[in-house]
């Protein structure tokens, strides 16, 4: 047992005692002063939560202070983002951003809007892909598009990013599918493996081993170019369908109105965290698709996507 393990053991055993010392160092005005709170608008334990916690734990080194993960789930992330937007812009509160902020903004005018937050960086982006069961009725995109019966798509939840992916396909081939929302991507994948739905659109990490053992077929990716990780899987364009690129992403934002100095420190620390080999290794283990965008690029991308998402949701009948 090495020293780090011993340290961890001590930390757990003395749960109450060992942590009392943390996060009380306040006083001088230089940022960071005291612990930084990382708002995670999802339940503890989900993939977004883990990605954020992993990022947060490495941000501690770059920032030189404690980073406390704070789960504020509810209303498809809207609760957490509302709290983030309303928090003091002193750099002591930052939050995880996911695709759903676009969905919420489009579906509910009272949800947090893009201009209420300061998007600092994107650290991950995963293009989605279309999957079917290898023993199912449909074995290719053509068969799905030309099916003479209703095709059911499993989704991870109503209006979620995977639902929208399927909607994009429907929109571009001008037909309607029926969508069965499950509780999260786990239920969605189970339903596909158990052949209770005809197809799913999902990000490639979880289903990969089922593709490898021949249970599922990965038919096409929602991207402009083939993915490096899956060079054998065509894009929709190659198959002759005009389906736009579609990906889920994760990034970090702070409330609007950060002090310039604080912002610079924070942005640098975020970049440093992203570049650190320790984070890169761990992120690879967690199968995160690391893709860095700086604040400007990330904000630009969000603003470009927003109208597309709004239009798509209207077509899916999900906006009022």
């Amino acid at each position: 047992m090495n020293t780090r393990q011993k340290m961890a053991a001590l930390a757990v055993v003395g749960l109450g005692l060992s942590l009392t010392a943390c996060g009380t160092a306040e006083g001088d005005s230089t940022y960071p002063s005291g612990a930084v709170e990382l708002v995670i608008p999802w339940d503890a334990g989900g993939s977004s939560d883990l990605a954020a916690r992993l990022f947060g734990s490495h941000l501690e080194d770059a920032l030189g202070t404690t980073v406390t993960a704070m789960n504020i789930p509810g209303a498809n992330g809207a609760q957490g983002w509302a709290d983030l937007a309303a928090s003091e812009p002193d750099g002591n509160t930052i939050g995880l951003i996911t695709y759903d902020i676009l969905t919420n903004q489009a579906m509910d005018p009272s949800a947090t809007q893009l201009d209420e937050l300061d998007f600092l960086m994107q650290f991950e982006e995963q293009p989605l892909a279309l999957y079917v069961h290898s023993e199912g009725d449909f074995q290719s995109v053509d068969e799905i598009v030309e099916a003479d019966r209703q095709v059911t798509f499993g989704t991870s939840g109503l209006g979620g990013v995977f639902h929208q992916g399927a909607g994009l396909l429907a929109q571009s081939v001008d037909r309607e599918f029926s969508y069965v929302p499950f509780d999260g991507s786990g239920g969605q994948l189970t339903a596909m493996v158990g052949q209770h739905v005809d197809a799913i659109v999902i990000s490639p990490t979880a289903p990969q081993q089922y593709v490898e053992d021949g249970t599922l077929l990965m038919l096409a990716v929602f991207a402009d170019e083939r993915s490096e990780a899956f060079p054998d899987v065509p894009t929709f364009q190659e198959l002759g369908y005009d389906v736009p690129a579609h990906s889920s992403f994760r990034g970090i934002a702070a409330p609007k109105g950060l002090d310039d100095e604080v912002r610079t420190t924070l942005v640098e620390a975020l970049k440093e965290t992203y570049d650190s080999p320790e984070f890169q290794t761990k992120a690879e283990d967690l199968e995160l698709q690391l893709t860095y965008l700086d604040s400007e690029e990330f904000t630009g991308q969000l603003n470009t996507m927003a109208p597309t998402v709004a239009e798509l949701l209207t077509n899916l009948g999900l906006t009022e």
Partner: protein
Amino acid sequence: MPTSDLDPDNALDTTDPEASGQLGWQLVLPLGFLVVGTMILVASTQFPDTAAAVTAPGLYPGIVSVVLIVASLLSIGELFAVRRRRTEPAAPVTAVTDEERRDSRRTWARAVTVTVLSALYVVVTPYAGFVVTTFLYCFAISLLLRDRSVRGVVGAALIAGGLVAAAYYGFAVGLHAPLPKGVLF
């Protein structure tokens, strides 16, 4: 304690003053449920028609609220039936002594106080914060159950302090779990 069962030894106990007396009080719950059921039933029929009529949001709550309404009506009927069946007073009437009356008044006051305190606690906490509000809340409840002597008051304060410290160190410090924060603290 809810005693269980459709079982024989639990057959409707009409000698229980709680279960038989004060029809007005007994009607509070079934009538409340009746209102809840009706509100939900009405709301269920008013969802806008969407394309996905198969999965209309009002379908399932509509069915369940009808069940609730019917069952509430039946349980109201049950109350009246029990009342009618009983022709003589349930419990032998005994003279109520002054002491008992005072006792009962004190108990009643205590129950109301705890209830009001709890409601106040929820109202005040977001302003005054966890530590202060919880201390006062625990202190007050504890005091209700102790002698109003110096010893009793000091004891109640110690108990309240100990409980607040336990919660604070256990949750906020030890586990980084959230405790209510107030405007003041």
